[in-house]
């Protein structure tokens, strides 16, 4: 009996233990740790942080696929300015496909990732907008010290920026704003807005900024009223060249061009921006976000993140020179190098630049009249590398010269000794802010609009100002050898007149090319002007004598002006998304 009692006591104790565990409902409650819920973010303080997160997506660009900070593959490699470069043709084959056009398909994986990342950015904006809208004006003003309207305008500016990139890459993106419920996003087609409606929609994002953004922002990463004006001018300039569905320019809208002129004019009148005295300052970390920078992506280093929040978009474009890693992508074309040749008056050799000797080495630069912007733009054998007279660019800097030659892009380089430079393994990043619009670009947009409006006389001083700065003593002061001798026969003349509208166009387009080469603008310019087909096929025909891999390159008009809508997205949309012309 005693034993049985003992047993029962033990049993009783154990059953108690069992039940005491079992009865507790909270035993099965497990709160996720280290995360925050949707509702908790609806305070002014957290809404401000969500806005930062929306800005942060600007800096989440990457080496190749999602290089939206500096789209060298899409803006330069696709044009007559640059070759893909890298270790071989097969190195980053997705980019080779877009370079030669003939191999590109809707299945291009990089293109799908680019699309995906841009929408990730848009979703951050929409999330932040919803939160800001849910708060009261008073709370916002008192707690954040800024109006709700201003923050909303900033957010729309960022969204407009993403939409602009989507538009020039894919022509028919999906427009997702904060009013579309998350569950409905799958039901939005990419053809709800026509081409022109899309441009108008994007323009509105910036019009809101003109209204609600302050003239000055204490934090330089935030866009100002002038930045909104500038971006609107850029959007309207694209919008003005009306395309049909086969991407041919069918008309040019004068009223929009007028607006471009007026917008840039109103920016000029504020005196906020000016051209740097020295062209080089646009491409040096020490001068980032100075007088010529209208709006830029902020980059940082030694900021508590593993490799710094630097610019990784250009992380593959360094040379193989000492202190650099690999990878020698984004190399300069012969065509571009030759385009910097000038005549005795310092004016471009519009029709004969490919005749005579090719610009391949420092000697070629010495023996020709040259626009000095070549030395800011391209790395050439025998020339000082990135203004360092003690570092001469030599043949070991290029990776496969047999395929891609020796010319490298210089604008996105910094010297390894720069505090902004960070090497990680074979690659590098720089913490120089990435300009999205600089004043020189903006002035040329105005000049372009003026010329298209037939107002050549007003465009002339703009183009000449750009040229004068390029050839100025300041701009050539860094272009010297260690003995102080200039590295080239720099000769930049100004135009006395732009001539006919046709001649003026040619001058303007040439000037844009020289001024903005390797700033990832060229291909989009060609498409906007409606001359991509002619320009690129001429280029391929002439360039393939130097680069035999271009044998298979061909630009197909009516298709290659835009990337395909990514096949993956069409598949997920169950056919709701429509493919662009020419891809099937």
């Amino acid at each position, binding site marked *: 009996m005693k034993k049985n009692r003992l047993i029962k006591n033990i049993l009783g104790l154990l059953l108690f*233990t069992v039940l005491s565990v079992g009865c507790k409902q909270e035993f099965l409650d497990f709160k996720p740790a280290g995360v925050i819920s949707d509702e908790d973010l609806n305070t002014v303080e957290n809404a401000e942080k969500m806005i930062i997160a929306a800005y*942060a997506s600007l800096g989440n660009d990457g080496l190749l696929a999602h290089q939206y900070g500096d789209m060298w593959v899409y803006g330069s490699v696709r044009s007559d300015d640059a070759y893909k470069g890298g270790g071989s043709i097969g190195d980053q084959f997705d980019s080779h496909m877009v370079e030669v056009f003939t191999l590109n398909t809707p299945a291009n994986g990089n293109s799908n990732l680019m699309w995906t990342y841009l929408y990730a950015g848009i979703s951050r904006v929409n999330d932040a907008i919803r939160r800001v809208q849910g708060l009261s004006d008073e709370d916002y003003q008192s707690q954040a010290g800024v109006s709700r309207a201003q923050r909303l305008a900033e957010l729309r500016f960022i969204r407009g920026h993403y939409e602009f990139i989507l538009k020039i890459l894919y022509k028919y993106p999906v427009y997702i704003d904060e009013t579309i419920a998350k569950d409905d996003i799958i039901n939005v087609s990419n053809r709800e807005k026509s081409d022109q409606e899309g441009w108008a929609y994007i323009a509105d994002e910036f019009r809101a900024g003109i209204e609600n953004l302050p003239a000055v922002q204490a934090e330089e990463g935030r866009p100002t009223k002038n930045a909104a004006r500038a971006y609107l001018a850029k959007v309207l300039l694209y919008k003005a060249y009306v395309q049909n569905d086969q991407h041919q320019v069918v008309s040019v809208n004068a009223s929009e061009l007028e607006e471009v002129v007026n917008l840039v004019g109103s920016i000029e009148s504020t005196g906020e921006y000016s051209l740097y005295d020295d062209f080089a300052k646009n491409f040096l970390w020490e001068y980032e976000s100075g007088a010529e920078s209208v709006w830029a992506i902020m980059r940082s280093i030694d900021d508590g993140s593993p490799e710094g929040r630097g610019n990784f978009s250009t992380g593959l474009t360094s040379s193989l020179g000492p202190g650099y890693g690999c990878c020698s992508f984004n190399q300069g074309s012969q065509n571009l190098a030759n385009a910097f040749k000038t005549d005795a008056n310092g004016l471009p050799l519009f029709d004969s630049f490919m005749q005579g000797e090719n610009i391949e080495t420092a000697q070629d630069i010495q023996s020709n009249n040259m626009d000095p912007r070549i030395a800011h733009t391209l790395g050439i054998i025998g020339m000082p590398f990135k203004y360092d007279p003690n570092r001469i660019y030599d043949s070991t800097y290029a990776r496969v010269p047999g395929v891609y030659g020796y010319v490298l892009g210089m604008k996105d380089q910094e010297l390894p000794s720069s505090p902004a430079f960070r090497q990680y393994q074979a690659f590098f990043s720089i913490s120089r802010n990435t300009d999205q619009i600089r004043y020189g670009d903006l002035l040329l947009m105005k000049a372009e609009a003026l010329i298209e409006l037939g107002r050549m006389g007003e465009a002339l001083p703009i183009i000449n100002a750009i040229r004068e700065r390029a050839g100025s003593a300041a701009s050539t002061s860094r272009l010297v050898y260690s003995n102080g001798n200039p590295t080239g026969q720099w000769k930049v003349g100004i135009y006395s007149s732009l001539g006919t509208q046709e001649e003026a166009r040619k001058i303007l387009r040439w000037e844009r090319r020289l001024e903005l080469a390797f700033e990832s603008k060229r291909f989009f310019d060609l498409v906007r002007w409606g001359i991509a087909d002619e320009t690129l096929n001429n280029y391929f025909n002439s360039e393939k004598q130097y680069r035999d891999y271009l044998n298979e390159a061909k630009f197909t008009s009516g298709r290659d002006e835009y990337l395909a809508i990514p096949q993956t997205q069409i598949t997920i949309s169950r056919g709701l998304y429509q493919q662009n012309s020419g891809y099937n």
Partner: protein
Amino acid sequence: MKFKLLFSLVLLLAVQVTFAQRNLTGKVTDAETSEPLAGATVVVTGTSIGTLTDGNGAFQLKATTAAATITVSYTGYDSQTIAIGASNVIDVALRAGAILEEVVVTGYGTERKKDLLGAVAVLDIKDVEDVANPNVLQSMQGRVAGVNVDQSGDPGQGVRVRVRGTSTLGKLTDPLYIVDGVPIQSFVSNENNSTIPQSWDLSWLNPNDIASIQVLKDASSASIYGARASNGVVIITTKQPGKQKPRVDFNLRTTVENWNDYDDLTNNRERAIVEWQGAVNDGTNPDNTGIYKYKWHLDPSLGPGIQGNGVPVLDEIIYPEWLDEDDQLRPSGHPQSIYGGSIEEGTDYWKEISRRGYMQNYDLSFSQGNERGGVQFGANYFDHRGVVINSNFKRMGMRMNSNFKFLDGKITIGENLTVSRGQRLLLDNGFGGTPEQAPYRYKSILPVRTEDGRFSGPPGGGFSDRDNPVALSVDNQDDRSSNVKVFGNIYTEVKLFPSLTFRSSFGGDYDNIYSKDIFRTYSRGFLANTTAELQLRQTHQTNWVFNNTLSYSKVFGQHSLNVLGGTEAIRNNINIFSASAKGFAQETVEYFQLSAASGERTSSGMSTGFSLFSYFGKINYDLNDKYLASVTVRRDGSSRFGTQNRFAVFPAASIGWRVSEEDFLKNNEVISNLKVRAAWGQTGNQDILNDARFGLYRAVYAPASNILPWDAGCAQAPCADAATSYDIGNNDSGILPSGFLATQTGNDKLRWETTTEANFGLDFGLLKGRLNGTVEVFKRSTKDILVQPKQIAAFGDGASQWVNGASMETTGWEASLDYNAESKGDFRYSVGVNLSHYNSIITELPESLWASYAGNAEQNIIGQAPNALFGYRTDGIFQNQAEVEAHAEQVGKRVGALRYVDLNNDGVINALDQEYGPANGVPVVEFGVNFQAKWKKFDFSLFTWGNLGRVVTPDVYRMELGSLDNGENGGVNQLDAWSPTNTGSYIPAASNSNRPFGFSLDYNVRNGNYLSLRQVMLGYTFEQHAESPFSNLRVYVSGENLGWWVDRKGSNQYVQTGWSIENRLAGIYPKAQRFSLGVTASF
């Protein structure tokens, strides 16, 4: 193991002086082998007078003259009753009993194997005891029908086990592992929204400690484990103390490993030829392509060639003399380079990164027990030096299992405890892949080292950015991951009444995983690391389980009833902390301490966990040993689901009929055993992230992975941890403001995934039990599968969401057959064969998930296997320009390219010209054959394993096509590619830029049939001598992974062999050939 005496109730006899006595002696042996049986019970029938046989099988027994018979019994043998005749010497030869009496561990208890109604597979521990597998799960491969095991040869690396294929579409398809009643929790972490694989798996468990392994394959047998059993359950029991005299066992094994199964890569000369061929095929100048120069000419007399102006003919290759301007790096094979046989051969990087591996294993165990309890103690040391240089795994472990009985055995208190420490080198974090991948990507012209002794690196133009394979390995030599694990349980068992037992067990599983990763500075070629860095990571996992059961067992006449009921509570917690620091003044291993760093520091960490609470019950009923029935119910609640869907019930029922017990079969000469059974049951799956149901935002100040596209797979999909910090104030450095990132969309309705399975089984024994077999047929369907649909990209951040969506169905069968031949003299043998087959298809899938699987705008995966191949058809290679022009529009078509079939005849090859093919890597039949033989003191076994009807998708890109990429290396098959003078080849012409248009069901998919000679062993057991200190002494030699037969039928000849065909991936750690010498001794 004959020493595995579990019970013996006999005490020394009581002497009764009133009767005359006789002294009986004799020897008990195995009737087949004539080996003595130690510890057999010899009893005077009907009395308590008895004894045990000694180590030589001998016994002495004092019996009264009145005693008529003695009964001799021994576990695993049929008992015999022998009449006591005139002689006082009685020798008894026992026959091994039918295995029907075998007891197997099922959920929360044991059952006789002959009573099983579901599909339960038992791994015969005896077959694998001496196999040199550091991980016990590896031994199941091919030996248990319906259980597939994958493992690389990487020391200490975990294995992947699949029971009957997979029952879910999710990533976590591992079975539930239960060791001594305690579930092993695989690591699931929501850091980076991804699962951290439990790469240690059961590598901490010493195979020699294991008493039994059972696999519950079907839902009816597994449903007692309810919520987590849908991928099957593997139950492992460690050795328990028995009733026996003190005994010491010692095992020693040394293994040598060789890796000689390399993929065949081009040497320097072959590489040069391939590069030339690619360039001339493209019409580009081969001298400009890479590092080689050539003398060659066009010969129009041979034909037009691909470019139409003649066939190029190579006359001479000019190898580069110097590779870098410092004159430090000369090509392999250069007179001043110590690497490479000749300039043509270059460096063979397979040879450079491989070495002879070895394994050493020492086990020492001690056990003792009596009716008051016992102790089983074991210690193990295992050292594995892998076949890739600098790879290594060490394990030290101790285990103590003990039990104590009180109150005449009414109360048992016991414990199982394992303490183990494993340590392995982390080979997997070098730039450019792991060392074993690197030879595919590093040119053989590069020597291992430069003349000044540093490692070579890509020197410049013509080379990819991939790193030196040897350097990658050496860089990792101080990187370690070590795991201290404390695992075990304490339990008590109380016999309340003779038929009612209460059992309570509290188990714990604690892991402390510490990893250290050192990045030294280096500069080799254009690769460099300028900042030394130390990364530390510490993971703590605590998992405890408390279960209480009450079991009732009673026989009422012909009725036998077993009832079990219980509760179980499980709690899991994981804490992870990691820190890194940069800038080290010295780079000695001792100096790499966080506090010694002078540069930037980062830290991160997280914690997570889950809990489960369950009630379960089981009733087994048996009528007359003929008719069997069983019912199981489990109700599970999990913290991973919302309150409304938190609990679910998983029932099961099964019936069986032992036909051979019926009168009409009872004394049948042919059929000794026949049982038919049918079972139905449900199991669940909750293997999702702990916080899967919540909508989540997370601060991501510092992205770990969106910089290098190959980190965290951000080249293929957006990084899950894209940063939220931004230098809004343009300060350029310092702490940045940061926000939050939506990482997951919540789902309150999330609930269990449920698997329903019907299983029909047939067990038979023929020819007096010499031929035994089992056949199982099953159909399994899973619904509400937990999936993460692919969102349209326009959704943006936070698109990841768990939903209950899809359904799938698997049908299959398994068969196993064992034949024990009658012994002929000193020779006997047995053969075992097992076969299995399964076929899975997706039966239901929401539209939002279609894009997660292969398909296009017109076709979806429904009705296909989840991993069905999807692709284009090809019909050969364009032989001439006329064929090219006649063909439909196809991107990149030209002479020498693959010709794709225009399936829908619309004149253009595009995404719609694809169709479904077979499932990737799933064989029609997987089989294992086990042969064992004994002759005198020798024993021999042979084990083969194979797959039939399987297709694989080897890396044809690298081995046949992608050779010209990035200045890398590739397979020799490229030399056989199509050319104007080799028009019969199935490999498209080499090219720099022309590659196959898309994945092809003909070209990319290859025959994956094979048969592998998995193991051969020969052992010798020494004769017992009275003066020998050993009660058992055996030596053996064995070989593993000895050879492969690969089916090369068909036009596409290239199939990866050896380890890569089995592992299905190029560039993962090889499975080495192993030769072992071992000794087992007991005294």
